[in-house]
Structures are given as structure tokens and as C-alpha cells.
């Protein structure tokens, strides 16, 4: 049986103008990788239709360790306090290659 190791999956939904900022955040905290999907949606800041192609959402997924998660959440919290619209949720996942999700070696 393949052994599985627990990690955390952090998901962030926000306007795509935030993409560069989030990528910077991941670089800053040495996150080993991330994945971005195009999305549309509706929320408290109205609809993000992406219909015009000028205005859409992104869904960002990062698999991190528990300790990295805390660091990222704190950074996200600061952004929320500044007024940015971020829909954030965390889930438990299991992976087969835990070494992949350690900090980027320098």
C-alpha cells in the first residue's frame, strides 16, 4: 500500500489583478510551488464575470506544511485587513511525496 503523508491545502479565490501579489507572497516565503486556475464568481464585492476578459477571478492552490500554512495565513490576514477581497479556505490533504512540499532549498 502506498503511504500517504498529511499536508495542508490552502485555497484562495480573488480577483486576477491580485495574481502578481500572491506570487510574490509565495516567493517571499519560499513556497515550493503553487497552482492557479481561472474562475468566475459572485460574492460580497459583486459579480466577477470574466465576461469582458478584463475582470475575472483566480483560484490559487498551494500545498504546504502546517507551519508554512500559518505564515501564509498571517500574510493573508494582513491583506484582508487592508481591504483586499480574498476568499480563503484550508483543507486537509494527503500526499505521496512529502519532501516536495518542504521549503524551496536555496
Amino acid at each position, binding site marked *: 500500500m502506498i503511504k500517504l503523508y498529511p499536508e495542508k491545502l490552502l485555497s484562495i479565490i480573488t480577483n486576477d489583478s*491580485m495574481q502578481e501579489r500572491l506570487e510574490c507572497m509565495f516567493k517571499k516565503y519560499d513556497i515550493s510551488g503553487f497552482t492557479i486556475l481561472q474562475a468566475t464568481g459572485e460574492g460580497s464585492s459583486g459579480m466577477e464575470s470574466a465576461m469582458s476578459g*478584463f475582470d475575472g477571478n483566480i483560484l490559487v492552490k498551494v500545498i504546504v506544511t502546517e507551519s508554512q500554512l500559518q505564515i501564509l495565513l498571517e500574510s493573508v490576514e494582513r491583506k484582508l485587513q487592508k481591504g483586499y477581497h480574498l476568499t480563503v479556505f484550508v483543507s486537509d490533504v494527503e500526499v505521496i511525496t512529502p519532501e516536495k512540499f518542504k521549503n524551496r532549498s536555496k
Partner: protein
Amino acid sequence: MSNLSNLLLPAVLFFALGVIARLIKSDLKFPPDLAKVLSIYLLMAIGLHGGYELAKADLVIAMNSIMWALILGFTLPIIGYLALVMTRKVNPLDAAAISAHYGSVSAGTFLTAIAYLDNVGVTYETYPLIMLAVMESPAIVVGLILAAKARHSIAAREKAPISGGGADLTTTAVAADSPGGKFTDLLREAFTNGSVVVLIGSMVIGAISTPSGMQQLFPFIDEIFMGVLCLFLFDMGMVAARRIGDFRQVGWLLALFGIVMPLFGGVIGAYVGHSILGFSVGGATLVAVLGASASYIAVPPAMRLAIPEANPSFYLTLSLGITFPFNVIVGIPIYHSLVQAMAAAG
């Protein structure tokens, strides 16, 4: 009379078709990226054309146009901001974000105006094209400064006045750092936004390319131009109509701002174009359109980053759902008539 024919222009009719498609709840959907591609094409085509002509332009007039574009770009948002704050319907940060849109410009409106002038057979100078490029960004900077000022006074009100009252520009600029990242980053972003790069880049290429190279490009940038513009406005009609529904949400006073502000900007623009820059009726009409139009491509994402506290529903509904349709459908002929009247008056 000739002005009424605006409503029978294919480009305007396609915009209306887009609006109608949404209103009757058609399931028609344009792929999200189409408007982006079409707008890149349109900016490229018009830039190449303009650059090609500008190579033979008068440098003094060009410089003068740029200066007045900057003046318009810096002044209009301040006036808009003061008007909005006076309505007491929005908080200062929303007012800053909204007014930045009105200092900037809408290429879609500008191109519709060109289609309109071509159709009624009115010629125009190429200088307004440079002004289009120049006016994209300054209003973003003004928006940032106004927001910083607003934040400063909000903070001051909350924490009780610190020492001296008047927030000078330097502290303001520093204060601007907090939400949107470094002020210099925001500045760089304002001046390197995609539309500006495509437009200015294409103008330079149009100006320096070999004539034989340009010759091969003309079918692409000329012949299919009007068709692509129709498709673009069709798409944007649907996008705008999605926002028209939010009209009630923003309240009638704000909605009124979305009509009065372009009229005001149009008058200022017409005056600058006709009386100050001395353009022909066609050219001055284009400057009026620059003054009247509100950005819905370059400014919204800039405001999301720089003034995250502002409500995007407000500025998107106003610029995209109210001012854009107003300008395309009734504004352009009004500005044209206005300039005609000015010209007739001497």
C-alpha cells in the same frame, strides 16, 4: 440631422444588439478572452496608423497636445472627486476610485467616435490619438493620491488629530504605500499598463517601420477594422448590460453622476480641442470624447490593487454600465454638435 445617423452606424447598432441580447436574457455568450484580443487588435491597428501619420506631424502641436492631455488627466479626476464627495453618497475612498476612471479614457468610445466621424465624412487630426495614449495613466496616479489623502483624513478622524493638520503631498505619497504596495510600484504599474504599451508601441512601430513593411500591414489594419470594432462593441454591449442592472444598487444620484460627469468632461475637452489646441471640428470632437469617456479596462484593476477598500461595484457600474453606453449611443453626436456650435460661433 447628420448627427442622428449615429444611431444607424453598424458599430453603434451592434453595441445596442449586445445590450438587447442581455436584456432579453439570451444565452449568447462571448468567450471571456475575445474582448481582450479584439481590443489588442484595435489598439494595434489604430496605433500603427496613427504612428505612420505622426511621423510627418508637427512636433510643437504634438507637444502641446501631450501637455493638455496631461492637464486633462490630472484635473478631471480632482473635479470628479470633489463633486462625488459633495453628494455624500459615497465615502472618500470610493470617490477617489470612481473619479480616477473619469480622468482616464475609453478606447472603445474613442474608436466609436472615429467610426462616427468617418461615417459622416468629417476629417480629424492624428494628435488626439497621442492624447488617448497619454491620458490612460495620469488619472490612476491622481486616484492614488486622493485615496492616500482620504485614508489619512479617515485615520486622523479616528485616532484624533495628531500634530499638524494639513497632510502634505509627501506624507500622502508615503501613506499611499500601505495597501497597494510601494507607491513607486503603483506608479510603474500605472504607466506600463497593457493598453498603453500596445498603443504607444504600435505608434512607434508605425512611425519607424519601412514603408514597404507598413504597406503589407494595411489590409490587416484597415479593411477589417470596422468589422472587428463591431464585434468588439457587440461584446461590450453585453458586458455593459450586465452592469446596467446594478444601476439601482448605486442609487440615482450616483447614476446621474455617470451622465453629468461625461457631459462636463466633454465640454472641457471640446473647449481644449477647439479653442486651445485649435483642432478642426473632427479633432476637437475627439478631444471632447477623451474628456467625456471613462476607463473600464486600465483603471479598474489598478484601483482594485491601489484602493482595495473601494467597492468595485460602484466604479464598474458607473463607467461600464452607465457612462460607456451613454457616450456610445448619445454622447458622441452631442459632443460633435457642441464643437460644431463652437466652430460656428467662431
